[in-house]
């Protein structure tokens, strides 16, 4: 049945689909290719020669390490804050009824629907009005605004699938609020939180726009790369770093995809 279905797809559509995918992914492969080029100043095609020396060069550059550490730190803290706040929001919105619930739900999602530049400008003016100096923490705050959304969206979908009577059953059997959270809610939303957390980390890790508005002198990895492209110095180093960013962000997203897919089966099993 299944193979029949595939064979009925016209050739033209297949070619169009392949072309579309190639258009999106070939440039990424080019980035990978230029990480190995021997030409330092320009993107000459084909590359005059191939070398792995840029990996060593990148490894020994302190500015790469500073940017990378900053990005990891920001992403980790923003994700941690988002996990706590996003889960609490999702629990409140999905498990209780209160005045203005739909509005609150919309307001939480808004930061990801708004263009990043709006969030960035808004935060920047808010920080200057409140006289908060730009620092590591202002970047974390900026990133947390959209990280919460990702965690919230994942958690709220899972919370909605948990039958309300599960919580009541747990209480009925003698578990207090904390025990119910620990033994019933957390195991049921765990994979959703992991997936949400991974996505949030990946989003924060390559965020440029909000960061530009909320960072002081620090540059996160994406900002550093942007600066490198403008003032080329050992250009292939940027490509090496880009390659690492692709891998670092791609792995968690892949993981999140598999986790939520399995989670559907686990959570649906009781129904």
């Amino acid at each position, binding site marked *: 049945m299944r193979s029949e279905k595939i064979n009925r797809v016209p050739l033209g559509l297949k070619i169009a689909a392949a072309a579309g995918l190639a258009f999106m992914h070939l440039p990424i492969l080019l980035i990978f290719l230029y990480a190995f080029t021997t030409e330092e100043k320009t993107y000459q095609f084909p590359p005059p020669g191939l070398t792995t020396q840029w990996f060593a060069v990148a490894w020994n550059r302190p500015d790469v390490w500073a940017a990378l550490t900053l990005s990891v730190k920001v992403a980790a803290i923003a994700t941690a804050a988002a996990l706590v706040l996003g889960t609490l929001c999702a629990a409140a919105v999905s498990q209780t009824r209160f005045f203005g619930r739909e509005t609150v739900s919309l307001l939480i999602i808004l930061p990801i629907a708004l263009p990043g530049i709006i969030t960035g400008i808004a935060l920047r003016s808010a920080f200057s009005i409140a006289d908060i100096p730009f620092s590591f923490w202002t970047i974390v705050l900026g990133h947390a605004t959209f990280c919460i959304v990702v965690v919230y969206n994942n958690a709220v979908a899972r919370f909605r699938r948990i039958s309300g009577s599960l919580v*009541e059953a*747990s209480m009925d*059997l*003698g*578990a207090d609020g904390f025990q119910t959270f620990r033994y019933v809610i957390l195991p049921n939303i765990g994979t959703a939180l992991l997936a949400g957390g991974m996505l949030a980390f990946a989003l924060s890790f390559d965020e440029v726009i909000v960061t530009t508005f909320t960072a002081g002198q620090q540059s996160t990895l994406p900002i550093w790369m942007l600066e490198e492209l403008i003032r080329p110095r050992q250009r292939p180093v940027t490509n090496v770093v880009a390659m690492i960013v692709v891998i670092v962000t791609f792995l968690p997203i892949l993981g999140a995809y598999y986790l939520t897919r399995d989670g559907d089966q686990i959570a649906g099993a009781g129904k």
Partner: protein
Amino acid sequence: MTTAVLFDNVSRHFGAVRAVDRVNLSIAEGEFFAMLGPSGSGKTTCLRLMAGFEQPTAGHIEIFGETAEGVPPYRRSVNTVFQDYALFPHLSILDNVAYGLMVKGIGREERRKAAEDALAMVKLPSYGARRPGQLSGGQRQRVALARALVNKPKVLLLDEPLGALDLKLREQMQEELKSLQKSLGITFVFVTHDQGEALSMADRIAVFNEGRIQQLGRPEDVYNRPTTRFVADFVGSSNVLSAKLCQRLGLKTASASLRPESVAIAPAADGALSLSGVVAGRSFLGATNRIVVDVDGNRIAVASPAAQSVPAMGTPVTISFAARDLHPMEDA
């Protein structure tokens, strides 16, 4: 006799909705008590008030002599079998059953033993390793029962536990629940909208409508002598005779109830009452035929044994019944 559950003028209002309105009831220890009524009649809210998921707006609740208001569900010696069973999907059957013991801090070995005994009691001894998703509806129902009973509750609350089962399984579970209740001696409070279920299982029935108890009594009394029109209609569809007909039959009440199975299509024997009318409807119900006779605009249903011949539509007939089967009612 100890009182297991006491409701003293209990009300639960949700805004303007009076889900439970000044309910008084007293359930004895070891009793199998049914709360019967249509959906929205307040029976489930009463159960949730006993479990502690709802707090009364007014009135007083006692469970075994202890005030229940303000006591959270996890500190009450009652357990609930939920309508949708509410088994924890992420835990094995054994862990589901042992959950109540686990949160109370009872040792692993002891609670495993208790959970296995409880599963054996509901005839699922070798199912401990499975997940709720791998069980049929009837099996999940038994697990929910074992999970509640393993905690040795003083009162077991059952919220339409047989609602999702097919007819055959439901009849079997009714018998099992009844014998389980007798052997354990635990007070069962059972919520249902199925009058047959309530009649066959309960020691006493409270019939609910619009947040109030319409009638409370033994199944025989509720069935044979409904005191309100609602009970007459809801429990086994009694005929309700209008004031005019009552007068003609020599009764002074505003209305009276008459069971379809108490009526025969035959001329009156000695001492029996009779009415004449025409056949206005007939349907075959298996063991009986339901024949509707129109008596001067009053439609009276007659349950006639299937073996008897069914008169054709429009045939003039005489229906008769014993005077003692006619029960006067309070309201019109």
